[in-house]
């Protein structure tokens, strides 16, 4: 009787197998994207040209990391996940193995998620150097990491479903999500930003200044917001798995020529 790897074993095999990949160019580009905004702000703080570092730290977190960096790294990481194997036509080589095919997307995704999460953890922890309140740091880390989890899952799913899925994901993350400031009450719950801000502590409710909201900002309890992001990510990864499980992919690509 031959041994067939379990779901967890498959994830571990892919994680170990692809681990050296995160130490190549793309991995360092992601680390660079995450670290650079903080480094620049830190230099300004050291030079003493920032009158209110605490406010700048919040601006950096919400307007920099939450709004731009997380969607960017979700898009860049997703293109290194299962979409890469479809583009490079290497997915069939994995699909002819007995390992469960539905574990392949999350197996690759978890690696990049872990890599980016590590750098996010480092950068948010370091934000205390530029005036971030130490007690708020844990929930701010959780907010970014959970949002990345959900966004990475969604981007990977769109990349699997649509030919230009990453582009569609970019539209969702950069055009739809910022509308959180304009959307009425319950509609805000259809954006990642809403849950991120509910977890991190709303940007403007903390500052209580420069409110740009066209609509009153609603909030979701911490644990509920965390659960929603985890569930959205898990659902997206599960759907990715189902998609790969049923995907007819020939050796020449999605549509084999025969």
């Amino acid at each position: 009787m031959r041994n067939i790897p379990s779901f967890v074993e498959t994830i571990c095999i892919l994680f170990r197998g692809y681990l050296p990949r995160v130490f190549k160019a793309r991995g360092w580009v992601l680390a660079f994207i995450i670290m650079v905004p903080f480094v620049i702000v830190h230099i300004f703080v050291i030079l003493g040209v920032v009158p209110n570092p605490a406010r700048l730290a919040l601006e950096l977190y919400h307007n920099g990391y939450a709004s731009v960096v997380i969607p960017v790294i979700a898009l860049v990481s997703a293109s290194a996940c299962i979409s890469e194997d479809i583009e490079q036509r290497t997915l069939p080589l994995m699909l002819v193995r007995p390992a469960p095919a539905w574990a392949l997307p999350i197996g690759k995704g978890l690696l990049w998620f872990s890599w980016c999460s590590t750098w996010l953890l480092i950068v948010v922890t370091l934000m205390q150097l530029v005036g971030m309140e130490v007690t708020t740091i844990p929930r701010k880390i959780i907010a970014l990491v959970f949002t990345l989890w959900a966004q990475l899952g969604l981007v990977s799913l769109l990349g699997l479903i649509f030919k230009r899925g990453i582009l569609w994901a970019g539209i969702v993350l950069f055009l739809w999500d910022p509308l959180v400031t304009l959307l009425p009450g319950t509609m805000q719950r259809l954006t990642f930003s809403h849950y991120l801000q509910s977890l991190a502590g709303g940007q403007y409710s903390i500052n209580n200044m420069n409110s740009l909201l066209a609509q009153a900002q609603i909030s979701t309890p911490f644990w509920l917001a965390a659960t929603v992001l985890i569930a959205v990510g898990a659902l997206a990864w599960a759907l990715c798995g189902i998609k790969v499980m049923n995907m007819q992919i020939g050796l020449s690509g999605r549509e084999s020529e025969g």
Partner: protein
Amino acid sequence: MSVITLERASLRYGHILGLSPTTFEIKEGGGITGLLGPNGAGKSTLIQMISGLLRPSSGQVLLFDEPPFRNPNVLARIGLVPEGDRFPVGFRADRWLRMMGGLSGLKGIALSASVDSALEIVGMTTRSHLTFSAMSKGMRQRIRLAQALLHSPDLLILDEPFNGLDSEARTALMYMLRNLAKENVRVLVSSHILGEVALLTDQILLFFRGRLLAEGSVIEIRELMDRHPVELRLEADDSKAVAQWAVDYPDLVAIKMETNGAVLSVKNPRDFFQKLQSAVASGQLSIKSLDPLDMNLEAVFQYLTEDHG
């Protein structure tokens, strides 16, 4: 028990029929079966169905009496060497093989032993630390074969494995496949070159334009080829002498005179070549060159299709 069973299995790509309803069976046990046909004959389509990448549009494909599509019990018993040069970018071959072995259910010492053994079989032990981009095409082909051998499959499927290999590598691969077949592995090899398949096996499945045209031994296929009139251009200073010699040949179908020779249409070309060789050797005939015009597999298949029609 059968290794492969196809029951009226067909595959469509939208409106295009990749493989017409096909029925055949390959029994369990070692040996080599050749899938022969020109490009676009449906060989790769068949291989993709057999290896569980594509589901048949109709009919049934069974491997070891089970459908192969995403079926771990079947996939654990097959190894696929795909056509083409596809590898993940930036990987070292040995690390990639370890990952592929892991996905095939190998772990620990067994995994290390399998990787070492597969690398030894393909003669890549000392070069496995290279990345794919640093390898030659022949080396990558060997790694492709190694990944299929890792888990000691009962069925090894190779899609055009000789493409791009030099003669030394071809000979080595053939030797390797014969050894595997002796070790009770069923080997399925696709090729568009009869000569290659003939060197490997006597069992051939002949495909043309998406359908199984014939199933049989190399001798039977050769006989079919011999019945096909082949056009040969004989270049000579004396066209008349060529014509005079050729008209005596009983399997001559047609002759077309040219300024510097003649174009002959002959059946049973192998017999013709022997006679021509004797004539030239004995000084009966003097020729400058011999150029077969349509002695390719495509022409034979065209002929066979008309013949079957």
